[in-house]
């Protein structure tokens, strides 16, 4: 970790052993000082409330050794793969194959996703994971409208997710309304909150916008946590009704779907149904986004992202542009929230912390801001990767944080760093996103 620090000097041609060792020694020394107290000494409150401590010099030595070796390995890797000024010659056949693979990727992914419940019918875990990934894909696409298209940095996106989830949960438990009635309402309420957030931030730019959205997200979470009579406070809302297939419940009873179709009941039916439900909603989100980008409002969003002043000068109403971006992004967040609730059957404010906002933002930025495919891939990579480390309960977030830092250093522009402009003059030319200042608010 520490080794990655020293990037100042360019790699030379030959392996400079003395230089690498010197760097590794410095890294190890820094690590020794950094970890000396935090790892070398462990504190714990005893049963009588008295603090005690014991030393763990073995762990400390292991960490320092890891840093030393890691530093050498990173230096060597950088030497071999590093940014030496070489032009990688790619044969035209390979380029052609790559572009074909690129075009085939979307249909293949779609078909694969469609077939997931068929292939993994007996693997409940994979189906659940699939639903989770699709929820985040949907959240990512929703936030993409705000951050990727309109360039408004939103750090409180989780608020709309929460509003959608809670409105579904409360409407369904209080009034007993069906899923199909509550889902649009959850979206509308979330959109309303999007406008509510949009108004105060109309004049704000950049980081002021970021902090206000973050504050908004925290306000929503704190209200949900403390308004006990409505939301049940930290205990959350439980006993949320499961969705029905247009009125047909997915239960083992006589009027259930299985009985109607004359097949044996299995709890997996519900999971499969949920999977297709959220898959369908995600596709609608994607379709709506693609269509919106071709409408004047979508063009206005992209214009707003590139330059707000020019936007005004051209007579684009920035107020409605910003508000619609917030509202539509929030609406999709609300849909995702409603889906999340039906899957869980229970919600509490714990699910809507800043961590979620950061995760969704990471998905959007890693996805390359504005690229629909990139967002989907980033959601798969992050959520899937996150699940891989489920066994390492404690270390999971640590690894996640490190991965976020490393990914940013490796590909600051996201996994898909190029995208085609929606409007072009005469011929379509891919714009490197380096030329575009996204998120400048």
């Amino acid at each position, binding site marked *: 970790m*520490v080794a*990655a*620090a*020293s*990037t*100042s000097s360019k790699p030379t041609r030959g392996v400079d052993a003395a230089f690498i060792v010197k760097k590794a020694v410095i890294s190890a020394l820094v690590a020794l*000082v*950094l970890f*000396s*107290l*935090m790892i070398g*000494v*462990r*504190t*714990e*409150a005893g049963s009588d409330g*008295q*603090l005690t*401590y014991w030393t763990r010099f073995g762990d400390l030595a292991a960490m320092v050794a890891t840093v030393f070796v890691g530093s050498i390995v990173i230096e060597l890797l950088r030497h071999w793969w590093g940014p030496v000024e070489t032009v990688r010659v790619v044969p035209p056949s390979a380029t052609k194959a790559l572009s074909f693979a690129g075009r085939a990727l979307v249909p293949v992914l779609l078909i694969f996703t469609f077939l997931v419940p068929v292939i993994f019918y007996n693997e409940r875990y994979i189906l659940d994971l699939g639903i989770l990934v699709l929820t985040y894909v949907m959240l990512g696409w929703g936030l993409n409208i705000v951050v990727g298209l309109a360039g408004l940095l939103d750090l409180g996106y989780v608020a709309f997710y929460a509003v959608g989830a809670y409105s579904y949960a409360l409407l369904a438990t209080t009034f007993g309304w069906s899923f199909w009635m509550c889902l649009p309402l959850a979206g509308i309420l979330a959109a309303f909150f999007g406008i509510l957030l949009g108004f*105060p*931030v109309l004049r704000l*730019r*950049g*980081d*002021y916008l*970021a*902090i*206000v959205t973050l*504050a908004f997200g*925290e*306000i929503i979470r*704190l*209200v949900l*946590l*403390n308004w006990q009579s409505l939301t049940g406070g930290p205990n959350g809302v439980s006993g949320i009704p499961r969705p029905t297939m247009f009125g047909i419940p997915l239960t083992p009873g006589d009027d259930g779907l299985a009985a109607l179709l004359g097949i044996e009941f299995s709890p997996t039916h519900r999971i499969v149904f949920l999977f297709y439900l959220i898959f369908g909603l995600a596709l609608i989100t994607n379709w709506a986004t693609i269509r919106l980008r071709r409408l004047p409002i979508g063009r206005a969003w992209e214009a707003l992202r590139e330059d707000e002043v020019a936007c005004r000068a051209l007579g684009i109403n920035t107020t409605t542009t910003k508000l619609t971006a917030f509202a539509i992004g929030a609406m999709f967040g609300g849909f995702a929230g409603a889906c999340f609730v039906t899957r869980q059957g229970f919600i509490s404010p714990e699910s809507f912390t*800043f961590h979620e906002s*950061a995760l969704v*933002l*990471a998905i959007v*930025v890693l996805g390359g*801001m504005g690229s629909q495919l990139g967002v989907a891939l980033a959601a798969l990579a992050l959520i899937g990767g996150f699940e891989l480390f489920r066994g390492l309960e*404690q*270390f999971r*977030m*640590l690894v996640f*944080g*490190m*991965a*976020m*830092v490393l990914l*940013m*250093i490796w590909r*600051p*522009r996201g996994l898909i760093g190029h995208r085609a402009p929606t409007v072009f003059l005469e011929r379509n030319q891919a714009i490197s*996103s*380096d030329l575009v*200042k*996204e*998120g*400048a608010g």
Partner: protein
Amino acid sequence: MDYLAQQLINGLVLGSIYGLIAIGYTMVYGIVGMINFAHGDIFMIGGFIALITFLILVSIGLTAIPLILLLVLLVSMALTALYGWTIERIAYRPLRHSFRLAPMLSAIGMSFVLTNFSQVAQGARVKPVPPIITGGYTLHESADGFAVRISNIQIIVVITTVVLLALFTYLVARTRLGRDMRACEQDQKMASLLGVDVDRTISMTFVIGAALAAVAGMMYLLYYGLVDFFMGFVAGIKAFTAAVLGGIGSLPGAMLGGLLIGLIETLWSAYFSTEYKDVAAFSILIVVLIFMPTGLLGRPEVEKV
């Protein structure tokens, strides 16, 4: 009236702690133009290091409280500063000329790393310390027996903050480093052409910010008597709110914002409800920004076309 006076004292102390953290945010923002999300966790690390140093010093038999406090202060400032330096080297420097969101996300990642690092290294349970500095003064006692008190630890927090602020203002206004910092803030390329070592100046900014956060962490430890691995998040957000409220990039603004947030929080819990104190602080931030989009003391951003 006495109740109000007491709450004002409490708010002032809390505000001083927020202000010290907010300075780190505002300094980094002024020079690098990024939100250092990991700064709240630096504050938490500072608190932990202070706690561990304190335990070790007590267990090797030191008894002179002032000496212990001084040593704890120095060790935690030095180590936390090294944390700040390392984080800048690893997570921010490679991204300095990247697009705006990249360093911010890297900072969010770093914040997760630090939070979970201390959870893994020191356990998830809250670490309490017995009150180290006790005693205080009764300033005024009203007829119905309510006494306005100021404890010694409160005095220490406020005095330390004032002294550090004075030192810091001197550093920025009068020293070579301060001049370099102001130069980098205005125009990094020009500064580097005129012989300012931009990399070193930015590193030093992080080091100073982290050292101030360490002081805040130690004050928090002394004042509240506990640290836990999650305290950096809330404190960080509050301090950042303070920095924005005062006008990000402005040093007096950060301190003013810190004091305001501290006062709002204390007064709200005293007169309304404790549950909604954070909601109050954030709402006031939003209201202020609606009417003054660049904060209280911030310079209006002039956009050149």
